[in-house]
C-alpha cells in the first residue's frame, strides 16, 4: 500500500489521463469544454499528491526501494513531480482558453499533455538507462505531436519535423552512449554505472566517448547551444500552450534527467574534476548558450521567437548551476531546482500573457501586435510586464531569487569569471525583455493597423493569476520552497 502511496503522483496523472481519454472518446463533438478543466484537475491532484508524499516524508517509506533501480522515489523525484504537475497544469489551463479561441479544440491535446507529463515524471524518477530512455521517449513523442498540433499551419509542421528529426537523432546518440556505458561497465542501472566508473578510476577511451555521446543527447533535450537549432522553430510553430509546455515541463524533465544521469554516473571525483571531467565542457557550453541565445533573442521581431531564445538562454543559466555541482553537489542541484521552479512559473505566465493579448485571426506574435496594449488593456499588460521582469531577474520577483541562488552557487564554487559572464548576460537579456514593455507602454499602433483586442477566458486568467501569485510569493518569501529545493537536492550527497 505504501508503495502505491509514494507512486501516487505518477499514478494519478496516468490514471487521470486514461479516464479522460475514455471520457473524450464517448463525448459528443463540440461538448468537450470540460476536458481542460478535467486535465487541470488531474494535474492539480498530481500536485497535491506530490505535496502529500513530500510532507509525509518519502524517506519513511521503506517500500519505495521495491522499484529500485528502475524507478528511484526520493525527495528529488517528488520535487520534480510537483514541479512538472504545476507546469503541466498551467499549460492545460492556457490550452483551455487558447484552443477554443483558435478553433483547434481537440481532445488529443490534453491527452498528449498528460501522457508526456507521465513520461517526464518517469524521467525524473528513472534510475536505470532503460527507464531513462522510456521516460524520455514518452515525453518527447508527446512534445513532437504537440508541436505539430496546428495541422493547417506549415510552420507548425516545419517545427515539428525539425524537432522530431533532430530529437530522434539525439535520442539515438544518447542510446549509443548508454550502450557504450553498458559495454564498459556491465551495468544498466545508473548507480551501478556510477560505482563502476568510480572503481575504474582512469577513463578508458570507450567511457570518454560514452560520456560525450550521453552529454550531447542530454544537452539536446535541454536545448543548449549548439544543440538548440530546433528550439525557435518548434516553439514558434507549436500552439502557444504547447510552447508553454515545452518551455516549462519538457525543459524541467530534461534537467531532471541531466542531473540524475550526470551526477549518478559521473559524480565521482575524477569525472567532476576541472582537468579531466565534464564540468569544463559544460561551462563552455553554458557561456555559449547564454551569450548566443541572448544576442540572437535581441534580434527577433516575433515575441514568441524571442521567448524561445530566452528559454535557451535560461538553459544557459541553469547549466551554470549544473557546473557548480562540481564543488558542492547539493548546493548546485538545489540552485538548479529552485531556478526551474521560478522559471516554470515565469515562463508559463509570459506565454499566457502573450496568449491573452491576441484573438482569433489576430494572434499576438510580433512586437507591433503589442503596441499600445498597456493603455488599452492594462491588466494583460501588467501581467506580461510582471512575468518579463521575473524572467529578466529583477527583484522582487521569483526570477531574481532564481538567478541569485544559481549565481551564488557558482560564486561559492569559485567560478568567478563564469558568474560575471552570467551577470553581464542578464544585462543583455534585460534589453529584449524591456522591448516588450516599450511596445506595450510607450508605443501606439500605427494608424489604420488592426487593433489587437485581448481574449477573454477564465482559464487563461486563472493560469495567469496562479503564476503571478507564485512569482510574487517566490520573490518575497522564498524560504519554504527554497528549503524544499535544498532537501530535494540532498539526495546527491557531497
Amino acid at each position, binding site marked *: 500500500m505504501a508503495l502505491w502511496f509514494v507512486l501516487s503522483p505518477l499514478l494519478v496523472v496516468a490514471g487521470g489521463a486514461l479516464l479522460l481519454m475514455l471520457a473524450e472518446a464517448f463525448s459528443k463533438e463540440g461538448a468537450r469544454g470540460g476536458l481542460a478543466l478535467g486535465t487541470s484537475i488531474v494535474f492539480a491532484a498530481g500536485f497535491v499528491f506530490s505535496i502529500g508524499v513530500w510532507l509525509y516524508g518519502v524517506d519513511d517509506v521503506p517500500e519505495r526501494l521495491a522499484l529500485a533501480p528502475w524507478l528511484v522515489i526520493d525527495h528529488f523525484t517528488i520535487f520534480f513531480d510537483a514541479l512538472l504537475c504545476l507546469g503541466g497544469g498551467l499549460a492545460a489551463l492556457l490550452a483551455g482558453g487558447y484552443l477554443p479561441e483558435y478553433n483547434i479544440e481537440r481532445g488529443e491535446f490534453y491527452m498528449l499533455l498528460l501522457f508526456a507529463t507521465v513520461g517526464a515524471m518517469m524521467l525524473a524518477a528513472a534510475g536505470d538507462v532503460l527507464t531513462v530512455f522510456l521516460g524520455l521517449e514518452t515525453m518527447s513523442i508527446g512534445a513532437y505531436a504537440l508541436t505539430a498540433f496546428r495541422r493547417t499551419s506549415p510552420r507548425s509542421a516545419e517545427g515539428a519535423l525539425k524537432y522530431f528529426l533532430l530529437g530522434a537523432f539525439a535520442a539515438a546518440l544518447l542510446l549509443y552512449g548508454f550502450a557504450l556505458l553498458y559495454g564498459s561497465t556491465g551495468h544498466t542501472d545508473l548507480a551501478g554505472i556510477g560505482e563502476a566508473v568510480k572503481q575504474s578510476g582512469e577513463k578508458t577511451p570507450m567511457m570518454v566517448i560514452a560520456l560525450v555521446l550521453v552529454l550531447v543527447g542530454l544537452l539536446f533535450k535541454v536545448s543548449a547551444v549548439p544543440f538548440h537549432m530546433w528550439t525557435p522553430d518548434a516553439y514558434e510553430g507549436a500552439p502557444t500552450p504547447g510552447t508553454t509546455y515545452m518551455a516549462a515541463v519538457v525543459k524541467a524533465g530534461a534537467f531532471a534527467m541531466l542531473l540524475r544521469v550526470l551526477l549518478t554516473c559521473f559524480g565521482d571525483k575524477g569525472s567532476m574534476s576541472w582537468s579531466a571531467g565534464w564540468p569544463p565542457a559544460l561551462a563552455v557550453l553554458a557561456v555559449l548558450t547564454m551569450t548566443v541565445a541572448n544576442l540572437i533573442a535581441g534580434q527577433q521581431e516575433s515575441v514568441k521567437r524571442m521567448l524561445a531564445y530566452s528559454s535557451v538562454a535560461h538553459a544557459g543559466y541553469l547549466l551554470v548551476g549544473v557546473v557548480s555541482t562540481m564543488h558542492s553537489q547539493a548546493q548546485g542541484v538545489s540552485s538548479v531546482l529552485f531556478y526551474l521552479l521560478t522559471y516554470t512559473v515565469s515562463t508559463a505566465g509570459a506565454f499566457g500573457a502573450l496568449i491573452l493579448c491576441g484573438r482569433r485571426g489576430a494572434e499576438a506574435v510580433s512586437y507591433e501586435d503589442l503596441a499600445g496594449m498597456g493603455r488599452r488593456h492594462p491588466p494583460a499588460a501588467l501581467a506580461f510586464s510582471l512575468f518579463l521582469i521575473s524572467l529578466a531577474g529583477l527583484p522582487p520577483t521569483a526570477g531574481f531569487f532564481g538567478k*541569485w541562488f544559481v549565481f*551564488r552557487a557558482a*560564486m561559492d564554487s569559485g567560478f568567478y569569471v563564469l558568474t560575471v559572464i552570467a551577470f553581464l548576460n542578464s*544585462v543583455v537579456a534585460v534589453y529584449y525583455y524591456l522591448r516588450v514593455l516599450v511596445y506595450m507602454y510607450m508605443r501606439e499602433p500605427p494608424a489604420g493597423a488592426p487593433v489587437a483586442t485581448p481574449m477573454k477566458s477564465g482559464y487563461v486568467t486563472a493560469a495567469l493569476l496562479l503564476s503571478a501569485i507564485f512569482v510574487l510569493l517566490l520573490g518575497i518569501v522564498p524560504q519554504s520552497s527554497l528549503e524544499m529545493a*535544498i532537501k530535494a537536492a540532498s539526495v546527491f550527497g557531497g
Partner: protein
Amino acid sequence: MSSKVSTNQTSDGPESVDSSATRPAWIGPTVLVLATVIVVFALTQVLGHDSGKDILSFSAANATLGSFVPVGVAAVVAALVPTSQGWRVRFPLAVIASLFALFLVRMWPGASGGMTEADIAVTGAAGATESSTILSWLIGLPFAGSIAILFLPRQAPRLLKATTFLVMLGTLCASLPLLQVEMGRTYHFNQDIPWIAQFGIHYHVALDGISLWLVLLTVVITPIAAYASFGSVTTRIKDWCFSLLLLEAAMLGAFVALDLFLFYVFWELMLIPMYVMIGVWGGSNRIKAAIKFFLYTMFGSMLMLAAILYLAYTYGKITGGPTSFDYFELQRVVLPRNVQIWLFGGFAASFLIKVPMFPMHTWLPDAHTEAPTAGSVILAAVMLKMGTYGYLRFCMGLFPEASAEMAATLAGVAVLGGILYGGFCAWRQDDVKRLVAYSSVAHLGYVMLGLFAATQSSMEGAVLQMVNHGVSTGALFLLVGVIYDRRHTRMLDEFGGLAKVMPVYATLFVIATMASVGVPGLNGFTGEFLIITGTFVSNKLGHVNGIQAVGAALGVILAALYMLTAVQKMFFGPITRDENKHLSDINPRELLAVAPLILAIFMIGLAPNLLLSQIRDAVSRTLTDMNSRLEASPAPNYYRGPIKLVARRPDAPLAPTPASVTLTNPANAAP
C-alpha cells in the same frame, strides 16, 4: 537667548525670498513685514529675558511661546507678501513658511539648551523609546499606497492624485519623528529581522546622520514633484501615481537599508518606475533615453551584485558559519589587495554610473532631457544621490584601503571629467534642461571630490552638497518645466527678455541659479566651500590635492559662467519673439511647488549648521573607521595576507539573536 534672536533673523530669511520678488506695488507689504519682524524681535527679547538671568529658570511655557512666535510671524509674512495671489495660494504658503520656521526653531543647535530640561527630557525619552518600526513605516506607506492605487478606478484621476499626494504627505509626517533624535555617531531606529534565514539575509534598516538628510530630502522632494506633475501629466494618471509611489518607497528603502541584499533589492526596484516614467511620459526621444538609462544602471548593478555575492561568500567561508549580508558583519572582513580592488571595482562601477561620473555620464543628459519634469526632479534630486551615498556608505565603509588607493585617480577624474568637463559641456548647451543636466555632472563632481578627499570638512561638505544639489537642481528643473509647459521648447535662443513678462518666475529662477552657482548666503556656497577647503588639506590625493582644489575652485567660476549666460539669454535683453510677449507668469500650482525649495535654499544657505550638526558625527565616525583600517595596514602596500576578520564595530547595532544557526547551510554542507 542669543540663539533666539538669530532664530528670528534667519527665519525671516525665507520671507525675504518672496519679497525679493517684489514689484513696486509690493513696497507697502515689505514695510509691513519689516515692521512685524522688528516687533517680533523685540517681543522675543522681552520674552527670552522675562523670567530671569539663568538659563535653567527659563520656563517651559515661555520656551514654547518663544518658539511659536517666529512660526506665527513666518506664517503671517508668507500670507501677506504675495499680494498678487489669492488666498488659495497664500494660505498654503503660510503653512509651508511656518513649517520651515518651526523646523528652524526646533533644530537650532542651541535650541535644546535654551529649551532646558523639558526638552532634554523629551530628547532623552525619545532616545529611550526610539521606535524601531518608523523606518519600515516610511518604506511601507508609499509601498502600500502604490498597491492601493492599483485598486482605484482609472476613470477617477482626481481621486488617484489625491490619494497619491496624501500618502506622500503622510510619509512626510511619519518622517518627522526622525528629527527628534540627536543623531551623534551611532545608528538609530534600528530594525533587524531575519528574512531568508538560509542565506543570512536580513531585513535590516537603520538611520544615521548621513542618511537622515537624504531620507528627508526624498520625502520632501517626492510630494513636490508629484504635485507639480499633476498639472502637466494628463495621460494615464493611474500608472503615473503608481510609479511615483513605488519609486518613493524604493528610494527610501535604499537609503536606510543596511543589509546588502536588501539594498540591492531596493536599488533595482527603483529602476522600473523611473524607466516607465521616462519612457511613457517623456519627450520625443524618450524610448532611447529610457533604455539607455536602464541598461547603464543595470550593467553597474550586475557587477555590484557579483561583488556582493563574493563578499558574502567570503564571510561565510571565513566564519565557517552561515553567510551574512549585514553591513556591519561584512565590514569585519579585511580583504587582501588583489581581491579588494576587484570588489571595490564592482561596487564603484555601479555607484559611479549612477552618480554619474565621467566617462559613464552620457546617459544622464539624455534621461534628463527626455524625462517629464517630475521625473527629472526626482532623478536629479534623489536618485543621483544614490550613487554618492552608496559610494560613501559601501565603497568607503567596506573597502577603505581600496578607496584610499583609488581616491587620487578618481579625484582627478572628478575634477577634470566632472567639474571642468561637465562645466564646459553645460556652457555649450542650447537646451536649458540639458544645461542643468550637465551642471549636475559638475556638481556631483564636487560631491565625489569631497568623498575622495576624505577629510572631515570635505566629507561634511559632500553630504551637505548632496542635499543642496537636490534642492537647487530640483528647483531649477521645476522652473524649466514651467517654461516648457508654456512654450514647448527649451532652446535658449527661443527666449529673451522673459523677465519683463514673467517677473516672479524670473526672480525665482535667478534665485535657484544663484544657489546652483554657489553664491554666499544661498545653499550651494557652504557645501562647495567645505569641499574645497577640505580638499586643500587632504592627504589622500597623492600630493596633488592643492591642484585639485584649485581646479574645483575654477569650476565655481565656470558654473557662474554657464549659469549666468543662460539666465542672461533667457530673461534679459529685448523680447525678440512674439510668442514670448504674452506668456503668463508662474501659476499658483507651480509657485506652491517651488516655494518650499526656494525657502530651503535660503534656510540651508543661512543656517547650514542645522544640517551639519547632525552630519558631523556620522562623518567623523566614517572617517575614524576608515583611518583605523588604513593605519592598521599602511598604504600603498596594504594588507597582503589571507582574508581575515576583525571585531565588529563597537558602535554597530546589535545583531538579532541568530535563530537560524541550526539550519544547514549548503555552502558548508559540502565536504
